[in-house]
């Protein structure tokens, strides 16, 4: 059994070492490149969204490397994501690959999810699986925590590149912490590193929030490392959705973190009263929340033809007017070039800087 899971942000760093330790063979294809996207675009329906195309390309690359089981959770929401597994399986089987597609009927349900993992990972003990699943989630939340710390610290760094070095070291450390006590020890060490770093006083960096669809927000192959690029320009980056928060809303493994969906819904309600699929509530709600809490600008990111985010985009035009907050909408598809995005980002940052000076 050779298992492959499509990339999504830092997910592979959370499950990889743990599952390998438990004796599951994992095939990790190269990080999505131009070739991945080309493969995906070639075989996907024309108007399928970018996440579909990238994950499809990634699956083909994994199958080329000998994977025989693919994990794609499925779902039952108004968003297309729940149907990815079916269409991707059809396309890949049509191409002549033979493999098992591991998908659950209702991936938001813990027992369904565990059944699925038991099936595809071939682990016998249910209790062991339960522990393993939650350990992966906790690891994921620490990875997200390290990244948040990075975005928080980067604008204040004195020695150029020091934050990046610490961040890389931190990720490496978390990746290799294979038990909970070890993980907690690593967290203490990492927070000491960040604390002891030399920081500039008296700077007030621009704060920019990235809101939008989960995959484009988190995966560097989809957003062209926009978050990192913003951080390099000395801007503090915030995001509306983190994978660990998203999963915490479903499986509740972080005792001290409130349900981010409900939190966003409270702020979104004057504009969007019902969950219309995907991350529409988070996009609208978090934009309102950030706007009321001193953000300089918002970047709304989503893939071309994404239905829930189009609803959010329409509503955000109103939010923009009401709360006087600049919003840059970036719609990403397979033709989006990093250069074009860069130009728009620079223009947007210029605008934000000028707004700051005027005040």
């Amino acid at each position, binding site marked *: 059994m050779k298992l492959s899971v499509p990339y999504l942000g830092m997910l592979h760093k959370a499950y990889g070492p743990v599952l390998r330790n438990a004796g599951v063979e994992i095939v990790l294809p190269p990080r999505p490149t131009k070739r991945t996207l080309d493969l995906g675009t070639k075989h996907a*329906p024309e108007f399928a969204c970018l996440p579909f195309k990238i994950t499809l390309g990634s699956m083909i690359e994994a199958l080329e490397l000998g994977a025989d089981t693919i994990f794609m959770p499925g779902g039952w929401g108004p968003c*297309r994501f*729940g149907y990815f597994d079916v269409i991707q399986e*059809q*396309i890949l089987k049509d191409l002549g690959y033979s493999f098992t597609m591991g998908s659950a009927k209702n991936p938001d349900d813990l027992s369904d999810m565990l059944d699925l993992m038991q099936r595809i990972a071939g682990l016998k003990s249910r209790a062991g699986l339960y522990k393993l699943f939650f350990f992966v989630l906790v690891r994921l939340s620490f990875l997200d925590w390290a990244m948040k710390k990075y975005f928080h610290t980067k604008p204040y760094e004195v020695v150029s590149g020091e934050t990046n070095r610490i961040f890389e070291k931190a990720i490496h450390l978390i990746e290799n912490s294979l038990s909970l006590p070890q993980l907690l020890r690593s967290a203490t060490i990492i927070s000491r590193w960040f604390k002891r770093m030399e920081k500039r006083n008296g700077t007030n960096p621009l704060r920019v929030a990235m809101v939008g669809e989960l995959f484009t927000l988190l995966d560097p192959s989809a957003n062209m490392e926009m978050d990192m690029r913003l951080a390099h320009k000395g801007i503090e980056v915030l995001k509306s959705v983190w994978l660990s928060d998203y999963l915490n809303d479903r499986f509740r493994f972080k005792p001290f973190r409130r349900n981010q969906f409900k939190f966003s819904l409270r702020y979104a309600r004057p*504009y969007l009263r019902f969950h*219309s699929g995907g991350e*529409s509530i988070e996009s609208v709600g978090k934009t309102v929340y950030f706007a009321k809490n001193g953000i300089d600008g918002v970047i709304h990111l989503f893939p071309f*033809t994404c239905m829930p985010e189009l609803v959010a985009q329409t*509503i955000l035009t109103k939010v923009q007017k009401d709360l006087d907050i600049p919003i840059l909408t970036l719609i990403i598809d397979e033709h989006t070039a990093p250069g074009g995005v860069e130009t728009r980002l620079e223009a947007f940052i210029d605008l934000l800087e000028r707004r700051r000076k005027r005040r």
Partner: protein
Amino acid sequence: MTKVGVPRGLLFYRYFPLWETFFETLGLEVVVSTPTTERTIREGSKLLPGDLCLPVKIFFGHIESLKKGVDFLFTPRYISIEPDAYMCPKLIGLPDMVLSSVDSLPRLIDFPIHCKAKGTKADALFYLQVGKIFSKNKESVEKAYWMGMERQNRFRTLLQRGFFFEEAIDLSRSSDIPKRQSEDGRVKLGIIGRPYYTHDPFLRRSIVEQVEGKGYQLLTTEVLSDQEIEKGIEKLRKKIYWSFGKELVGSAINFAQNGLIQGLINLASFGCGQDSFNFEMIQFTIKEKIPILSLIFDEHLSAVGFSTRIEAFLEMIARGVGQR
């Protein structure tokens, strides 16, 4: 008399008989916007971001033309019309989109219909909620709902018997339903599309005129009963969780299997997220059994561009029929 405005777009093409009878029985005047024109599309496009699909833009164009003369605007929030399937995300967010992009609106009637959460009676509850605005008497609201449902069922039967949308709206007013139009032995083609493509005269005119002009008969997905559609999709690995998706895929498969149809014309709008997947399912299941022509709408649509493709398609069908 209080005027309720119904925009001629989206689910108008599915539920209008019910809405009209319901409001008229309650003693209200129903104002429907004028049929879609170029101008409707232009007005709608001005209000919305460019990537939204054409039917939503048309809907907003109708709201723009309707909003001045009415006291209420009927834009219900259709979340789910059956326990295990959703509507499109854009329909779920529709009233919020209207509120945030159109100025100086009259009061919206925007209660949700959510059968997935509240069970199948959510539909009736919705109309009770709406009726409460206009009438204190619960019984008269219930009566209006049942009158509306009766007409809706007649309308559905008429569509199943092969009547056109406009004819069915008129004929469903009287209680006796005429028999099926006589079988004339024309070659039949199926047209797979949501009701707001297949029934909007502006969108369908170029296609229907040309196809019927060549002596073919077009059948919409609505000639099939729910059971027939259900039968079409029962073999799929996973049930489709969009009501329209179910209808389109189920009827396409049924058309291909029952041998009544010689070819399929698939209508979708540019950038429609669901239809990209639905069409993939259709193609995957039946592409070897039946010829399919896929036409994509956007706001730059021109009848000429379609006509060449339809002509070629019809020629292919004619050759296939001749050979048999």
